[in-house]
């Protein structure tokens, strides 16, 4: 029982049809938005979210790499870890490597950014050279450092001996203190370029009038640095350092390739210990429990990041 289309006189058909034709999927923004976002969300949920939960579950189990069996052992993995000297060492090393290297990066990056902010011949060249460490694949760059710190052929030792700095011998990967120094050196080398570029971007965002005002008011270099620039740079430096903290806290390649946690397991960090126990030792449960301890560190960093981001938003 289909009636005539134009029931009422005076109502033309054209506009409604056009309007209906335009209300296709391509125009329903909410639906379209969801559809376009769906693949990304699915990937993130299935392959980051689910494994993340699985990591937590595994840490309460005695799962091994060999079998697919999964038996709940409650808090036993954590109890074992709490009494484990190697684990204590790994937690301490993770914090130590991360904090010392990022403290150095903060100083170095601010200094480097000030240098690059000035005008001089060859500035562009220096800038792109500074970026090299960050761009190079970590695993390969780490191998270069392994060779630089070689026990027999170390160029560092040769140079130190030549200028009379070294009288004995530095066995870089044979001594816990020197191994720590080597690892921190590589972390600093690798993360300071990124921090420099970010700080530099922050510096160019400081309005020229403020700099000039400080200059006209007669503020000297240090006064301008401490009183004007550093406070204004603080948010952006914080962001750079927080990224650096995440990079160094979660790093695996540098420690693994340089020392493999040695000598005498003195330089293990959480990630390498987790690999040692979980993959090489085939005890997935133990490994997962070790790796889980990265979470509190990352959580603190994430919260700080969000806070800085929010403050920056309010400021703008």
């Amino acid at each position, binding site marked *: 029982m289909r009636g005539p289309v134009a029931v009422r006189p005076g109502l033309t058909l054209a506009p409604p049809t056009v309007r209906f034709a335009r209300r296709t999927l391509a125009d329903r923004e*909410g639906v379209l*938005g*969801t559809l*376009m*976002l769906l*693949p*990304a*969300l699915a990937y*993130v949920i299935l*392959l*980051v*979210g689910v*494994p*993340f939960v699985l*990591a937590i579950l*595994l840490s309460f189990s005695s799962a091994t*790499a060999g079998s*697919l069996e999964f038996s709940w052992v409650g808090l036993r993995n954590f109890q074992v870890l709490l009494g484990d000297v190697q684990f204590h060492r790994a937690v301490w090393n993770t914090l130590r490597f991360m904090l010392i290297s990022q403290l150095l990066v903060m100083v170095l990056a601010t200094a480097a950014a000030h*240098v690059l902010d000035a005008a*001089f011949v060859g*500035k562009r060249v*220096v800038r792109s*050279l*500074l*970026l*090299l460490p960050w*761009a*190079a*694949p970590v*695993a*390969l760059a780490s191998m*270069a*450092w392994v*060779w*630089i710190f070689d026990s*027999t*052929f170390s*160029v560092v030792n*040769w140079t130190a*001996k030549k200028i009379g700095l070294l009288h004995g*011998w530095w066995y870089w990967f044979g001594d816990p203190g020197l191994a720590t120094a080597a690892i921190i050196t590589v972390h600093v080398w690798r993360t300071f370029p990124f921090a420099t570029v970010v700080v530099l971007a922050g510096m160019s965002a400081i309005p020229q009038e403020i700099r000039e005002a400080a200059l006209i008011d007669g503020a000297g270099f240090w006064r301008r640095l401490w009183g004007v620039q550093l406070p204004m740079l603080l948010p952006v430096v914080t962001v750079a350092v927080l990224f650096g903290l*995440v990079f160094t806290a*979660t790093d695996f*390649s540098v420690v*693994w390739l340089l020392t493999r946690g040695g000598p005498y397991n003195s330089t293990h960090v959480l*990630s390498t210990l*987790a*690999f040692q126990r*979980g*993959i090489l030792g085939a005890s*997935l449960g133990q*490994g997962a429990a070790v*790796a889980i301890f*990265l979470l509190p560190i*990352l959580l603190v*960093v994430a919260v700080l990041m*969000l806070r800085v981001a929010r403050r*920056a*938003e309010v400021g*703008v």
Partner: protein
Amino acid sequence: MRRPPLRKALKVLKRALLYAAAGAFAVFAVFPFYWMLITAFKQNRDLYVGATNLQHVPWIFNDPPTLDHVRLLFFGTPYLLWLRNTAFVGGLVVLITLLVSVPAGYSLARLVGRWGERLGIGVFLTYLVPPTLLFIPFARVISWLGLQNSLGALVLIYPTFTIPFCTWLMMGFFRSVPRDIEEQGMIDGYSRLAVIGKVVLPLAVPGMLTVVIFAFTLVMQEFVYALTFISQVERMTISLGVPVALVRGDVFYWGSLMAACFITSLPIAIAYSAFIDRFIVGLTAGAVKG
């Protein structure tokens, strides 16, 4: 400061300090690359001289340079195979990343409204969930899927870090496209989808190029997952094969190893430097409200 000569001297000193500082930073950054380069071309008798011998200067070529190590790398090791594996994995991961994160970036920037902000931050935060936390559950997932020792495992897993990162980057780029242009297109009778295809995507080509470069280099840099899933030398990628498989027992082939490091790092480093500014813009544009 009162006398001009002193002021001039101070100025010269300042310049000198500036150049010294710039030089020091550059040397610190470049030194390992220089060391790779010189090692790659040194003859063995020039290379393996103990550092206790102070007469032999390791910083320069004491004997004529040689191509032996490079030749060994290309024809005596699986380096070319690793290169092919890396290109294969990298290509597929880039494709997946583009297909997933370009629409997602646009959606977060324009379509999902108030939720976009939060979802965007949420997606970005997953980038902070590190491989070092996930490789253990993935070991279980990969063996369940039967993908051990397969490049497929890497193709499946690598987008977990390229997608969040590149979605965030694309979101930043799309926000920097003026809304007016899109609205003009829609007033002219195009649908939203047509506007995206005809107006927005052409404008976003630089952004997509950045995504390609970064996704590919992230793949080339990855080490942990490759180490966990791949143990067969023929299936390795470059950043796994070079540090792990260029060793015979305890003997490192330092010449070939450093040649591999240098040859692999250089193109990546150049690509990175070329795109770094765009990358910073994308990163910060994503953080600032559009």
